[in-house]
């Protein structure tokens, strides 16, 4: 019995021409940095932080001023310059996309 009543009520709702009214609208926007990845895939540290090698060395001989810069390739992949300069000595390709490595820009 109860089921039948429910079905009738639903039919009534469908017949009315206005099923719902929009009372509130919340738009959500997302943003992200315009770089392909923000973690250096070689040493797994954020590119904006010093690489593992520099972190270890600055502790050892306190060259706090030695800046560990970021390098972007033409492929838009970014790495620490220190990490990448060691890798390109043995293979001049981007470790992520295997494209020929050429530097687009360097900096922080």
């Amino acid at each position: 019995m109860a089921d039948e009543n429910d079905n009738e009520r639903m039919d009534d709702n469908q017949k009315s021409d206005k099923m719902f009214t929009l009372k509130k609208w919340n738009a959500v926007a997302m943003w992200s940095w315009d770089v392909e990845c923000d973690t250096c895939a070689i040493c797994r540290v954020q590119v904006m932080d010093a690489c593992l090698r520099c972190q270890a060395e600055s502790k050892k001989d306190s060259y706090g001023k030695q800046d560990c810069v970021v390098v972007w390739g033409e492929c838009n992949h970014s790495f620490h310059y220190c990490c990448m300069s060691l890798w390109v000595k043995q293979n001049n390709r981007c470790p992520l996309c295997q494209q020929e490595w050429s530097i687009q820009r360097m900096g922080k």
Partner: protein
Amino acid sequence: MSTPARRRLMRDFKRLQEDPPTGVSGAPTDNNIMIWNAVIFGPHDTPFEDGTFKLTIEFTEEYPNKPPTVRFVSHMFHPNVYADGGICLDILQNRWSPTYDVSAILTSIQSLLSDPNPNSPANSMAAQLYKENRREYEKRVKACVEQSFID
């Protein structure tokens, strides 16, 4: 002494624990982070299913610029595994990338179990049986699975 290679391995271990891939596990040995023990479970729907295959991974101070040496400790019968347990896998040799970590290495070896490459054989008998007599191949693999429970 904490070198870049050792620090990277600590990160690999952390990632392996926080985001463990299914069917593989690994950890550094008690007193040396440069030597790891790992286990790969035989993938479902392959003759390796239910096997627990043990491996060792040895890193050098050049990691991650140079790949580690990975070796099966458990006896294996697979077209791309040498008699001494050494593995013939491109990403552990000429296709190595410093972006790989322990997690990536273990999952690649796991998928090698499912998809052997009989055209570059390390075990010619296994490669031949894989191509020409799949029933015998599966029988030999199943014997390895049984063996893996013991050793």
